[in-house]
Structures are given as C-alpha cells and as structure tokens.
C-alpha cells in the first residue's frame, strides 16, 4: 500500500506538529475534495504521521505532539472510514497489549497511529503472560504488538514469545517501549520478530509483514 505522499501531506503534518486542529481539518477537507476517503488517509494522514514519528525518533518533535496528532488523526479517520468500512485494510488479525506494566501511553499512541493508518486491531489493554497467551491463541491472532515500560516487563516478553511461538510458530510478534530503545539487542534476546522505536515504525513493519503473509 506504500502510495506516494500527496502534496497536502506536508501542510497537514505542519498543522499536526503545531497542534493546529483548525488548519489540519481544513487541509483534510481540501484533500477530500480531490481524493477518496481511503486515498486521503493513505496519501495525506499516513505520510504525515510517519513524518511526525520519524521526527520524534530524531529528537525534532516531542512525544506530546505525537500523542495529540495520533489522537486527532484517529478521530478523522474514524469519521471518514468507520471501523466496519470495507475499505479498512484487509488484514491479518492483529492485537496490541501492554505486558505487565501499568503504563498505557506508549501503547495508546501506537494504537491510535495504527488505526489512523487504516488498521483494525484488538486492544487488549494490560495483561500478564498467562492471560495474554490464552487470549492470543483463542482469538487466532496473526500479528501481536507488545508494549512495555520497565525492564522486568521486557524480560517477561521472553516467556510470552516462547509459549506463543510453541503453540503457533507462524505468529509474528513486534515489541516496543523504552527498554527496547535503550538496548538494541533486547528484542532478539526475548525472541520477538522485530522491534520498532515509534508508532510509525509499527505501521511500516506490520505493513511489511502483511505483504509477506499474502
């Protein structure tokens, strides 16, 4: 689905970074005059969010901007592409969870940006390993996103991956959160398939996996 960004993606992104809702709404309305809702999402919203996420990673944009723009885009996308819309991506069953921690913001940002990019995924909230393994298998999840905040939780991902992969070797697991940012080898140590530093990474990686799964 990697479509070229529409020229409106740039002013849209600037409006997001400035948290200027009025301008962002106006730019998006302008996009809808030229594009279908799905195209407007794919060519304006997604590239803008990706750019915001990349700028966060480079230290040029702050998390509060990523969060507020993700929330806002999620709203816009829900309005023009309701969850049941057939144009919402045809995609493997996916879910996102916070493992063991009581820190939901990282997950919430990733979830918003994924949904704003047209993905549908289950939000499992916060779970411990046993509950997670049970739910993922019962829901026949193909792609699982795990977010953590503290190191002990990151280390628990290991047991989750081992049990899940034993039951379903085809399941893809993407991990993220501060411990994975600070130790670039940790995702491999815990047996995940990949890690991402930002919500934009999550979108790019899941998209790549979807391509490989088809």
């Amino acid at each position, binding site marked *: 689905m990697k479509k070229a960004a529409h020229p409106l993606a740039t002013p849209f992104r600037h409006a997001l970074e400035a948290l200027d809702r009025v301008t962002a709404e106006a730019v998006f309305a302008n996009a809808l005059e030229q594009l279908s809702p799905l195209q407007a999402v794919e060519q304006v919203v997604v590239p803008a969010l990706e750019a915001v996420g990349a700028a966060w990673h480079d230290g040029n944009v702050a998390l509060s901007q990523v969060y507020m723009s993700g929330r806002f885009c999620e709203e816009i996308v829900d309005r023009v592409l309701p969850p049941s819309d057939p144009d919402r991506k045809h995609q493997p069953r996916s879910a996102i969870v916070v493992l063991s921690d*009581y820190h939901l913001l990282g997950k919430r940002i990733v979830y918003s940006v994924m949904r704003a990019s047209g993905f549908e995924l289950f939000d499992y909230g916060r779970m411990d390993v046993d509950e997670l393994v049970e739910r993922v298998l019962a829901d026949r999840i193909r792609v699982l996103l795990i977010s953590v905040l503290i*190191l002990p939780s990151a280390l628990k991902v290991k047991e989750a991956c081992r049990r899940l992969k034993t039951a379903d070797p085809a399941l893809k697991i993407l991990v993220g959160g501060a411990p994975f940012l600070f130790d670039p*080898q940790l995702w491999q140590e815990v047996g995940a398939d990949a890690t991402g530093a930002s919500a934009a990474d999550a979108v790019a990686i899941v998209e790549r996996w979807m391509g490989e799964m088809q």
Partner: protein
Amino acid sequence: MSAMNSMQRTLTALGQQEPDCVPLFLLTSLHGAKELGLSIEQYFSRAEQVADGQLRLLEKYRSDCLYAFYYAAIETEAWGGTTLFLPDGPPLCGAPVITRPEHIDTLRTPSVADAEPLQRVLESIRQMKARVGDTVPIIAVAVAPFSLPVMQMGFDKYIELIYQDRPRFERLMALNIEFTVAWANAQLDAGATAICYFDPVSSTTNIPRELYLQTGQEVAKRTLPRIKGPTATHMASGRCLPILADIAATGTAVVGVSVLEDLAELKAAANKRVSLLGNLNGVEMRRWTADDAERAVKQAIAQAAAGGGFILSDNHGEIPWQVPDDVLLAIRAAADKWGRYPLDWVRDWKPPA
C-alpha cells in the same frame, strides 16, 4: 590513598575544578534489598534497613554518594495513592489518584509530616547522616511538580490537561509546588546534601522546547529557589540538549543526561554553567562484560570529565535490579583506572567508529 573524601571530590567537581579523580555516583537503590537478603517490599518497609543497605553498598562499590531514593511512587503514596511491589523490579504506582480533571478543583496538598512513607525516608536519611557526617554526599530525590502528575493522573490525561485545560493545570502545579518544596526541604533538614529533582516530562523527548519554556521551566523557576540546598535536575534518560541552557537558567547546579545524546556536545552546551551527571546506559548494563564497562566509562570520561563539572553515573538515576555486581564492580574499577586527574590520556582517545 585518595587525596580527597567523596564530599570534597564532588564539591570540587561541581565547582568546575578537577578533583583527585572523577566522582562516581553509582545510584543503586534496589540492590540494598539483595544485600540484606530481603524482598524489595520488605526492604523498603523499614527506615533502618534502607540506611543499612545504602551503607553496605557504599562499602562494596565505593561510590561517591549515598542514595536516599526509595522509589518514585512513594510520593504519590502521600497523595493517597498505592504502590505495587514487584519481586524483581522497581515499585510502581498503582491507580491514579486524580481520576477526573475536576478532582483537581478540590485537591489539597498533603502534609509531609503526616505521610508515614515520607517520614520513613527522612529517618533513613538521618541514620545515614549520623554514620557519614560530611564525608559522603547524601543524595535525596524529589519528583518535579511538573512530572509528578504522570503518576497522579496518568500520562495521557496529563498531556491533555496541559494542552486543553490550562487553568486546572495551573492549579495542579500550584499544589504540587508546595508539596515538592516541603518534601525537598524536609529531606535537606534530615541531613541530605542535595536534591535530585526528577523532571523527565520536561525532556525534549516528551514536550517541545516552546512548551517547556511556558510550563516545566516556569514551574522549576518557582520551585528551585525555594529549595534550601543544591539541586540536580534529572531527565531520567530523556533528551535535553536543545534545552540545556534553559535548564541551567532555572538555577540548578547539575543536569542528569541521557546516553541518547552525545556527551561531548552536552558538555560544550553546559559551558561551565551547570555540571553534568551521566550517562551510562543502565538498561544495557545488565549484559555488559568487564570490557564493555571499561569502554563505556572511558568514553564518558573522555567526553565530559576534563576541567571538572562532571560526575560519572548511569543515565537514569537508578541502576536496574538486573544489573549484576560484577558489572558494578567493573565500572568502579574502570573509573579508578581512567578517572584519575589529570586526564592526560584523553588527548589521544578516539571515539569508537
């Protein structure tokens, strides 16, 4: 034989002079429980255990400070919050005490004197002080009024409050400032040498500079001058290079900096206005070899220690439970080997490719 004790070494470095060797602050808190063979929850339940644990760690690792920090959530306990204890990690705050923004309207600042958990910390400080006097700095912690709300109400609700409800944000800051000032001063009165002011929400990782100038910096300017002792502002491994001068302008003496930024650039930006504390990667430390430890220590010293104004430490202000003794001892050994002033070897040191 060292020419200086830990206090002299630290004060000399903070005075932008070269002491006998680079001060090393190994900020271990949870490791005290291991030392005493107690669970983390048991350990923090009695003031004398924490004092004893700290003194044992001091002897073992020969750090240049004692660390009076229990865990961040102990402050929210004073506001009516709960703490969740883990067997193998830092205690975490439980459910938010502010569940709706309107709660802020009727919220009151709790008194430090009435908060048993805070009194326990004060007692630990008094006991440490009785043992070391003025020879070893005792570092205490106060979470910044601007960062505390993440635990009081949740990070998402707090970001929304900052952007969407300034009057309530202002009221919460006013309440929190009173708390932080009272808490910090109580710890200084009990014998703490300095206050580590944890303010990672101000980090450019979390908010843009323009917003920092209106919020986190403004709050720090209203808080720090009322704290009757030196402060170190810690970003808890968040980034701060673009706001380093702005942080210095709050009157703080030290800034705790992240491994995510270049220490040499930070040192240049600090420009002798503030000292730096950092920036070893605590999360990665868990799997360091002695060689890794030596390389990291050498790099930090080479990038920031010349001329003083630098304290070697981890980049978060707390070393994770999972970091083994061998690594901490290897850090100590490397600091002994490479940290002696004058740092003649630094001229020939090359950053790793």
